[in-house]
């Protein structure tokens, strides 16, 4: 039987894969994609929490699931924000590419202490 834990662990795995992508890769686009992966992992966790309401009480009423709409709204808004972030991010990446002909963040590294 699939439990909340399964979903949480899956989301943790996806989240950390995304985080590692951010840390390992040097291509700005791939970093951006890894961030998207992280955001979606978080969304998965929210939806899973909404579906499996988490209460101390043993008895659960079906009304609890109705409250969960809340989480759905948040997921919806996170998707909006992520889309906006990608739009801005791609513009910034294109701008950098125009200036430098590279989007490798190790090569484009003039700013140093």
């Amino acid at each position, binding site marked *: 039987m699939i439990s909340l834990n399964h979903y949480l662990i899956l989301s943790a795995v996806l989240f950390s894969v995304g985080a590692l992508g951010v840390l390992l890769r040097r291509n700005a686009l791939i*970093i951006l994609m890894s961030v998207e992966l992280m955001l979606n992992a978080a969304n998965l966790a929210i939806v899973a929490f909404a579906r499996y309401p988490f209460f101390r009480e043993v008895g659960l009423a079906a009304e609890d699931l109705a409250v969960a709409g809340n989480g759905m709204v948040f997921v919806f808004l*996170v998707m909006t924000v992520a889309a906006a972030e990608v739009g801005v991010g791609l513009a910034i990446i294109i701008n950098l590419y125009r200036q430098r002909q590279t989007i490798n963040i190790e090569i484009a590294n003039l700013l140093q202490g």
Partner: protein
Amino acid sequence: MTSIQIPELSFSLIAPELILCTAAIVILLVDLYVKNVERINITLLALIGIVLAFFSAGTLYGASELAFSWLIIRDDMSVVIDQIFLIGAALIVLMSHHYSERYHFPYGEYIVLLLFSTLGMLIISASADLITLFLGVELVSITLFVLTGFEKKSLLSGEASLKYLLLGAFSSAFMVYGIAFIFGMCRTTNLISIGSLLSEDFIGSPLLILGFALLLVGLGFKIALAPFHMWAPDVYQGAPTPITAWIAAGSKLAGFIALVRVFSLPDISFHPLARTWVEGIWWLSLLTMIIGNAGALVQKDIKRMLAYSSIAHGGYLSMAFVSHNDVGLQALLFYLAAYLFMTIGAFAVVIAAGRHGEERRRISDFAGLAKRRPFLAAMMSLFLLSLAGMPPTAGFIGKVWLFGSAIQAQYYGLAIVGILTTLFSFYYYLRVIVYMYMRDEEKEFEAEPLSVSLTLALSLSALGVLILGVFPNTLMKVITNSVIVL
């Protein structure tokens, strides 16, 4: 078809936000449809919007209400903070007016985005729900990513905006994940409901702590707390200087207010969570103070130096969360206001000391400024002394109050580290003053004459620093009241 019941919408409670938003949209349309609109008109429109918002915020004192189905809290604290944000925004608009004449970037869009970022800050200060908080933080971040990259001919600006974007997005992911766990454990994203849940005997699973920790990491990125600060110097150096000032002042302020909302609005002082949380912040604060000050010692670029100084200030400020009492919160609010004035002032001097195509970027460029431009040098000295925390200025009062709160909460170690690092910081602040007054300039460099707008910005921030330093009572009283009401 189900009919939809629209809940009560109390627009008067979000009047400052609405006014600011309207101003931004009006400017957008004016810029779009009016041919050859003068820069000064846009500036004036923006200032009118900000001033109106400021006064409409003023009418909201004593409201203390929850609005929009508990998404917005309008208490005195939010009003004070809104007003501080709006003053800051006005100063930045004045600075930008001067700066944009030098570099000619699309000014209409610039001001619109600036106003939207201010709107995001106001939303943060008034949010009573993690959803509004998140959206506010994102509105601030996304507009600032763009504004950082506004100087499109500058390689530094483009690179800075990329770095800011990647780390900003990375930190948002942490925030979302943190909110996910908090939502999962508490079944709500509303901070007040979370607070009442936590103040009962609700022990909570460790996942709740994980959630708050991830949220802290996310916000820690935004306010550049120590292990998450690496983006700050690069971004500060590369961004257009008024935007640097706005990131250093406004965005940092907003991040701290978000922390206040998350960790103070729900009353978690009795919860076992509080201990973990205080311990975490204790380390972050310590690390931030040390790294910020140590970093600032070796910088040659003035903007990078100020960046590290701002990181260090983040450390002092987060001390307030460690002490976790009313005094701490009051000190935090006061110091944030003082910090806003001195940071914006310092960056305004950096702008004023440059000219088209050439900025005084290195600290050594400031040599001999006192002879050429005694007014600028005096201003710079004032702001730097205030940042260092010298007596007649706002910085001194703020620091005393902050360290006092830590001592009151018996965190002596942290207070001592704070005082020691402050002493260290005198070195790099005074170094700039020494350069300005005691060294001769290496090459002739005539800065642009001061424009009206920049003079206004400079003198207003200087006035702010001095008034808060000499007559701190007014603001203190307001802040004390607002925190007690809370």
